[in-house]
């Protein structure tokens, strides 16, 4: 397909921008996630750095036009490095009054607002709780509002298709997308090709969507609705090959990579749960990689089958979200006891209970640490960005397989759905994963240990001469036979604890970004990385004495963490919970920390962290 961009009249001015934040907002049925992800794909293709924040309701279809049904997709793209989906949008596309009402407060002053005026009839306004039409009562003063009859214009453009009105109206998101492509001087090619592939079996839908996309673009061209258009040049990303990826996809790929690098087929036991289900969808497609996915009858069975597969010698993983982890905890206790390698992924969401299932939160750190009965330590890791989910999945698999112990990986809704350019790894450099398999019957004891790592051998069914029994009852050190001996029990408790502590010898030391000592250290974990990193960079550019450490390994901590913290006067711990890492740091190290907490189902803005840094650093 040829992009109309080439024929654009040169008269209008083109302004160069470093970075732009756009938010598409509309009804759940308006296709906003699709529109956003299409803009993202095009943006990735032109080489911008980017970060996205899809934000959708828990209901699949809330009543049309209501506040509850608003779905949004924010993308931050730039010619420079960026780390977050952006604080305040520069552009808001509002497809209906409800979208306007819920999103307007975020639009930056004098920001560009594109509204579908056709959706502002009296009944539409009522559904959104507007008494008076906000397009007419001064609500929009202070913004550059572009009213567009999106519905009518799309219908006109698609007249020739002869499709029913309902089908035509579904194309208006592509009209809006075409407008955005015009505004930012983007090619239509990526989306034109995507439409063609996506709807290859429905030629009339291909035609309709492509017409709408081109019409949106042409409408801007013809009407000069935008006086100025913008250009965000390609970012100077580090040399390498890139693809755009979200956290769930990257995580799935990380496990496949670990499977191939360990030579162990991947087994995933899982039960559908938002926002983790996509990992199951992804992995279920990789059958020619030997990946087996088992959609169990419940969360409990999902981990039970995973442990069974691990017993039989596979790389076993199970994926879930917070409430699912609660259900798996009894089985995790068993995995600790039988010392088999499994990885449990918790894509955290707002809780407790069903809470805010489609929103992000970091509130399961203490559950991952302490949510089991008795003394049952697990390795706990957290991913920091969508692309980092790949590395974290690989690292989790490596640690589980080489240390023969369960590993919990924490990501969250923000990472799971958010996308960014992923610099593809050097696959050779990933290294092989060697699990401690045992085949020699001579002197075999299932609970004899490597003296340094305390790792026990992995003897799998089918290996002659190594028949043995494992189970939840306490084991005699060495033989693994059932033992009710009280002194043995205490010894085994300490062995299991020391075994997980010894993992600290197998992980990197914490490396501060900035200085190795000073006034303020910002200590974070998980998806707050982007906001913290952006804020620390800006603060340092302003001359503030601030550095950061971002933890991937939460249990055990890096060996040097305590010593490193002592070299700073103050420690700031931002978290999307009420202070769970802070609690751990204070409890473990008697280290005083300042908490910065946000539990609104939304990630931190860079500015929120910068404000806290500034207050401390200047205080």
């Amino acid at each position, binding site marked *: 397909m040829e992009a109309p961009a080439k024929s654009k009249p040169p008269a209008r001015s083109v302004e160069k921008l470093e970075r732009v934040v756009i938010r598409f907002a509309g009804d759940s049925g308006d296709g906003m996630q699709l529109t956003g992800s299409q803009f993202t794909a095009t943006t990735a293709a032109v*080489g911008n750095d980017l970060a996205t924040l899809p934000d959708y309701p828990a209901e699949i279809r809330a009543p049309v036009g209501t506040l509850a049904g608003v779905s949004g997709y924010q993308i931050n793209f730039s010619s420079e490095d960026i780390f977050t989906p952006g604080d305040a949008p520069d552009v808001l596309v509002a497809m209906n009054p409800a979208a306007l009402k819920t999103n307007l407060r975020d639009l930056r002053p004098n920001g560009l607002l594109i509204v579908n005026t056709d959706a502002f009839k009296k009944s539409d306004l009522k559904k959104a709780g507007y008494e008076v039409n906000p397009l007419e009562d001064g609500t929009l003063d202070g913004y550059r509002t572009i009213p567009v009859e999106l519905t009518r214009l799309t219908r006109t453009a698609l007249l020739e298709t002869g499709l029913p009105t309902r089908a035509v109206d579904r194309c208006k998101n592509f009209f809006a997308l075409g407008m955005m492509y015009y505004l930012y001087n983007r090619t239509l090619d990526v989306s034109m090709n995507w439409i063609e592939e996506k709807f290859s079996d429905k030629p009339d839908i291909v035609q309709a969507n492509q017409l709408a996309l081109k019409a949106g673009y042409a409408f801007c061209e013809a009407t000069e609705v935008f006086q100025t258009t913008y250009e965000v040049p390609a970012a100077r990303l580090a040399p*390498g090959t890139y693809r755009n990826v979200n956290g769930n996809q990257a995580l799935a790929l990380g496990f496949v990579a670990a499977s191939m690098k360990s030579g162990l087929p991947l087994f995933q036991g899982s039960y559908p749960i938002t926002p983790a289900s996509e990992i199951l969808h992804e992995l279920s497609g990789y059958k020619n990689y030997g990946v087996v996915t088992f959609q169990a009858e419940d969360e409990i069975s999902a981990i039970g089958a995973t442990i069974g597969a691990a*017993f039989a010698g596979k790389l076993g993983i199970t994926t879930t979200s917070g409430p699912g982890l609660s259900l798996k905890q009894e089985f995790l206790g068993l995995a600790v006891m039988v010392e088999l390698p499994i990885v449990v992924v918790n894509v955290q969401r707002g809780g407790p209970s069903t809470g805010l299932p489609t929103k992000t939160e970091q509130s399961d750190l203490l559950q991952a640490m302490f949510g089991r009965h008795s003394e049952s330590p697990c390795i706990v890791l957290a991913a920091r960005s969508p692309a980092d989910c790949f590395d974290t999945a690989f690292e989790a698999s490596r640690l589980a397989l080489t240390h023969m112990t369960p590993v919990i990986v924490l990501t969250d809704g923000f990472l799971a759905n958010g996308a960014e350019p992923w610099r593809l790894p050097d696959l050779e450099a990933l290294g092989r994963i060697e699990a401690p398999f045992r085949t020699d019957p001579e002197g075999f004891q299932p609970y004899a240990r490597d003296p340094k790592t305390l790792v026990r051998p992995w003897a799998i069914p089918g290996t002659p001469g190594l028949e043995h029994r494992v189970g939840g009852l306490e084991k005699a050190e060495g033989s693994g036979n059932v033992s009710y001996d009280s002194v043995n029990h205490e010894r085994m408790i300490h062995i299991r604890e020391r075994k997980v502590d010894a993992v600290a010898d197998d992980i990197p030391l914490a490396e501060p970004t900035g200085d190795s000592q000073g006034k303020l250290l910002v200590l974070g974990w998980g998806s707050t990385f982007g906001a913290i990193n952006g804020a620390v960079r800006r603060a340092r550019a302003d001359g503030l004495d601030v550095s950061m450490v971002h933890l991937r390994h939460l249990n055990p901590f890096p060996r040097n963490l305590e010593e490193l913290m002592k070299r700073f006067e103050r420690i700031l711990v931002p978290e999307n919970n009420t202070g769970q890492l802070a609690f751990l740091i204070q409890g473990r190290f008697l280290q005083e920390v300042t908490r910065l907490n946000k539990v609104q189902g939304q990630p931190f803005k860079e500015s929120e962290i910068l404000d806290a840094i500034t207050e401390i650093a200047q205080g």
Partner: protein
Amino acid sequence: MSDSAPVLMKKDFVSDQEVRWCPGCGDYAILSAVQQVFPTLGIPRENFVVVSGIGCSSRFPYYVNTYGFHGIHGRAPSIATGVKIANPELSVWIATGDGDALSIGGNHLIHTIRRNVDLNILLFDNRIYGLTKGQYSPTSEYGKKTKSTPFGSVDRPFNPLSLALGANASFVARSVDVFAPHLKETLLDAHNHKGTAFVQIFQNCNIFNDHAFDEFREKQLRDDNVLVLKHGEPMIFGKNRDRGIRLVGCRHPEVVELGDGITEKDLLVHDETASVAYATMLAHMEPPEYPMPLGVIRRVEAPSLERAIQDQLQEVTDLKGPGKLEELIYAGDIWTVS
């Protein structure tokens, strides 16, 4: 199976662990039957896995010298499913009890049966909680007085075979702990079935529910109270083999005396491959109205989960070729920055 496999004996399947069931427990008989059947199956010892949950019967794996996994309460089917999918060559057996399988583990049980994973599930049904010292179980009879029901239980019990059939079980059988030849034959049938084989074994708990099965466990009573089913044979029972089961209309079974115009030809002929409805009818035949049917009640062929998974992996691999990591990672819309 290897041609050069050493000849295995019962003693090869006896572990070095001391068996710790109460003296006189029915579990001993079941353990002995299993240890006698395993060496006859032509499977190397290292290819057996015995999985269990929690309860008296779930100590079973510790006493069988194969690979074993003593799991957590009710979850043995989940663990066993993972084992079997991971390695379909293994012969996987589950030892479970009425509380373990039907109460806390009910969900896993029905879904495992539904999926037809090639596992052998041995339900040690003693109609009581033993390890927790005598509470009523989901198979305890209505009105039963136990530690937790001093005035009698007001819970209606499950019929385990009917439950399994409700999940469309492809193999359902019943035996009794002390009927050694019948039990061993049933275990062999279970092994030979490709799919979930569900075997209910009446097992006497002589501490908390003694005499629960006397009417068909005691020699002098059993012949009149038990109907041993055989595929293709008329349903005859009784010490003198003079009684049988006849179908009234097409729905209602009745016990009849042979003679007086009633011959074997009038009796119901057992068909293991008949409908679930037929098998369910048999499952619900109970004393005192009927003799207790024993043996294979239902046996039909159906695709097993682990085979279907393997077949699909192969199909997709044949179609797409074996996956290469490079092609997986460096895929989709990629771009290069130099």
